[in-house]
C-alpha cells in the first residue's frame, strides 16, 4: 500500500494544485511535501525492518501484473528525493524569480511523482511511461518562463531526450519480442535462457544506450549544460540534484538485477573517467555559477559510473553511498548559489564579491558543501570517494583511480574559484544590484540540507552498513 501512496501523494497534489487558487498553493504544496517525506521515511523503516516490499497492481498474478517494488537502495533514494523536494519547496517560499506561474508548482509535483514512480517501477514498459511523464513535466517547467533562451533550451532538451526515449521504446519492444516479458524478475529468469545468449545483450545494450542519453555520460551529455542553467534556480536544485541520478539508479537496478551487462563493463569504466574529466573541465571554463554547477553534475556522474564499472559488492556499496551523498550536496550547492545570487545580484562570479564579509554564515554553508563535493575529510564526499578509490585500487585499476583523484583536484579548483571570486575578493565597484535580504525560509532550507550532509559526513557508518546489508549486486557479480 505504502508503495502506491508514495506516487499518489505528489500526483494527486499536482492535480489539486492545478485547480486551486494562488493563496492556497504554497500551503498545500508544503503540506504535501511534508506528508511525502513522512511516508518515505516510513517506507524506509518498513524495508529495513521487514525486507523488500512488492506490490502487484490489478489482481493479476506476478509476472503479468504491473509491479511496484522497493528494496533498500530505492527506499533510501526515495527518502533522499523526498528530502531534497521538501527543502526545495521550503526554499521556494522565499524565492520569487521565475517561479510565479500558477502551473509551476503543479508541474513540479508531477516531476516528483514520476521520479518516485521510476524508483519503484519493476516493469520495463511502466518505467518507460514514467520516464515520458517526467520528460513532459520537465519540458513544461523548462518552457514556462517563456523567454527566447527558455524556448531554445527546451528545444535542445526536447530533441535529445526524445531521441533517448525513442531508443528506450525500441529497446523495450525488442526485449519484449525476444523474451515475452516486461517484469524485471521474469526478465532476469528469461535472460538465463540459452537461445537468448546472443541476442539479448544487443537489446539490453540498446536500452543502456538510451539510459546513457538520459544520464548524460561523455559523448551524450550535450543537452545538460545547454538546458539546465535556464531553469528557475530552486527547480535546478531539484532537477540537477535528483533527476539524472534517478536514471542512473535505473542502470544500477537493470544491470544488477535483470540483465547481464558485463560485456560493456570495461567500456563503461573508460567512459566514466572521460565523463569525469570533461565535466570538470567544462566547469573550470565557465564563470556563471549555474553553468559551473551544471557541468559538475556531469563530472559527478563519472564517479557513479566508475562505481558500477568496478562490478563488485564493495563497488556497489560505494556507488550507493556516493549517489546518496551527491543528491544532497549537489542540491544544496545549487540552493546556496541562489543565496549567493541574492547577495551579489548576479550569477556571474566576475561581477560579484565580498560575500564573506557581508554574510559569513553563507560562507560556512558553502564551504561545507563545496568541500564535501571535492571530498575533503570529514565530509560525506570524502567517504564516498574513499570507498570508490579503495575499491578501484584493490582491483588494480590504477588509471581509473588516478583520474578520479585528479578530477578531485580540478573540482577543488573550481570550488576555490567560486570561493575567491564570490566570497573573498572585495565587491567590485561596478557591482550591479544592491544586495537584498535573504529570505529566512530559503536559509532554513539550506541549513536543513547542510545538517543532513554533516550528519552523513560525521557518521557515515549507518548508511554504509545499511547499503552493505542490502547486498547490492552489479553486473551479476
Amino acid at each position, binding site marked *: 500500500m505504502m508503495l502506491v501512496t508514495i506516487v499518489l501523494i505528489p500526483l494527486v497534489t499536482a492535480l489539486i494544485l492545478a485547480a486551486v487558487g494562488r493563496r492556497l498553493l504554497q500551503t498545500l504544496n508544503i503540506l504535501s511535501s511534508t506528508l511525502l517525506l513522512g511516508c518515505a521515511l516510513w517506507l524506509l523503516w518498513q524495508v529495513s525492518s521487514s525486507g523488500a516490499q512488492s506490490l502487484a497492481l490489478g489482481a493479476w498474478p506476478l509476472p503479468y501484473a504491473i509491479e511496484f517494488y522497493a528494496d533498500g537502495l530505492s527506499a533510501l533514494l526515495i527518502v533522499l528525493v523526498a528530502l531534497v523536494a521538501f527543502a526545495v519547496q521550503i526554499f521556494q517560499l522565499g524565492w520569487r524569480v521565475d517561479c510565479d506561474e500558477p502551473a509551476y508548482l503543479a508541474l513540479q509535483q508531477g516531476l516528483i511523482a514520476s521520479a518516485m514512480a521510476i524508483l519503484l517501477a519493476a516493469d520495463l514498459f511502466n518505467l518507460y511511461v514514467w520516464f515520458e511523464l517526467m520528460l513532459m513535466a520537465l519540458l513544461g517547467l523548462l518552457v514556462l518562463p517563456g523567454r527566447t533562451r527558455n524556448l*531554445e533550451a527546451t*528545444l*535542445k532538451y*526536447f530533441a535529445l531526450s526524445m531521441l533517448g526515449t525513442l531508443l528506450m521504446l525500441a529497446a523495450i519492444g525488442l526485449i519484449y519480442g525476444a523474451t515475452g516479458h516486461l517484469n524485471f524478475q521474469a526478465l532476469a529468469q528469461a535472460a538465463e535462457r540459452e537461445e537468448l545468449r546472443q541476442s539479448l545483450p544487443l537489446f539490453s545494450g540498446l536500452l543502456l544506450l538510451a539510459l546513457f542519453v538520459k544520464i548524460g555520460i561523455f559523448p551524450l551529455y550535450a543537452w545538460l549544460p545547454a538546458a539546465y542553467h535556464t531553469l528557475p534556480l530552486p527547480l535546478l536544485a531539484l532537477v540537477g540534484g535528483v533527476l539524472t541520478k534517478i536514471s542512473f539508479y535505473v542502470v544500477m537496478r537493470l544491470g544488477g538485477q535483470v540483465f547481464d551487462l558485463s560485456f560493456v563493463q570495461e567500456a563503461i569504466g573508460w567512459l566514466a573517467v572521460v565523463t569525469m574529466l570533461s565535466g570538470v573541465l567544462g566547469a573550470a571554463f565557465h564563470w556563471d555559477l549555474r553553468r559551473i554547477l551544471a557541468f559538475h553534475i556531469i563530472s559527478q556522474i563519472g564517479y557513479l559510473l566508475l562505481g558500477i564499472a568496478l562490478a563488485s559488492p564493495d563497488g556497489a556499496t560505494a556507488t550507493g553511498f556516493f549517489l546518496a551523498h551527491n543528491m544532497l550536496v549537489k542540491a544544496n550547492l545549487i540552493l546556496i548559489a541562489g543565496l549567493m545570487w541574492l547577495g551579489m545580484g548576479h550569477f556571474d562570479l566576475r561581477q560579484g564579491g565580498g560575500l564573506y564579509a557581508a554574510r559569513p554564515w553563507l560562507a560556512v554553508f558553502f564551504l561545507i558543501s563545496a568541500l564535501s563535493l571535492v571530498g575533503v575529510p570529514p565530509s560525506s564526499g570524502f567517504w564516498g570517494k574513499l570507498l570508490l578509490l579503495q575499491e578501484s585500487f584493490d582491483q588494480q585499476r590504477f588509471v581509473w583511480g588516478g583520474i578520479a583523484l585528479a578530477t578531485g583536484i580540478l573540482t577543488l579548483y573550481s570550488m576555490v574559484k567560486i570561493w575567491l571570486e564570490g566570497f573573498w575578493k572585495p565587491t567590485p565597484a561596478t557591482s550591479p544590484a544592491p544586495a537584498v535580504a535573504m529570505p529566512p525560509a530559503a536559509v532554513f532550507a539550506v541549513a536543513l540540507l547542510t545538517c543532513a550532509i554533516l550528519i552523513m559526513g560525521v557518521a557515515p557508518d549507518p548508511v554504509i552498513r545499511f547499503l552493505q546489508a542490502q547486498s547490492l549486486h552489479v553486473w551479476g557479480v
Partner: protein
Amino acid sequence: MTILLALAISLCVAAGTWLLLSRDVFRLIMGLAVLGNAANLALFMAGRPGGMTPPVIVEGAATLAADAANPLPQALVLTAIVIGFALLCFGLVLAARVSRAHGHSDVGAYQVSEPQASPGQDATKPPLMD
C-alpha cells in the same frame, strides 16, 4: 508480414535519422516523429503479428486458441502512440515559437541560451546571457 514490417522499420529509421541531422528545426521535429513511428512499429512487431482470432478463451476451453492475437503489444503501442503524439504537438508548437522568436529556422544559429564569445572578446570567458 515480418519482412514487410522490418523493411518499413528500417525505412523509417533511415528517413528519421536523415531528417534529424538537418539544421532546419521543423525537419528535426519531423525526424523525431518518423523515428517514433519506427519505434512503435518495432514494439508492434514484438508481439509477432499475424494471429487473427480475438484473444478470448472460448467457453469450454481451458487455454487460448493457438492463433490468438497477442493483445499486449497493441496496448503498449497505443500508449506509446498517445504519448508520442502529445510530445509531437508540443514539439511543433515549440519549433514554431522558437523560429518566430529568431526569425529563422536554423537550429545551429540558436545561441541565446549558450552565448559564444565574439571575436574581440577573451575566448576563455564567454559572455553571460543576463
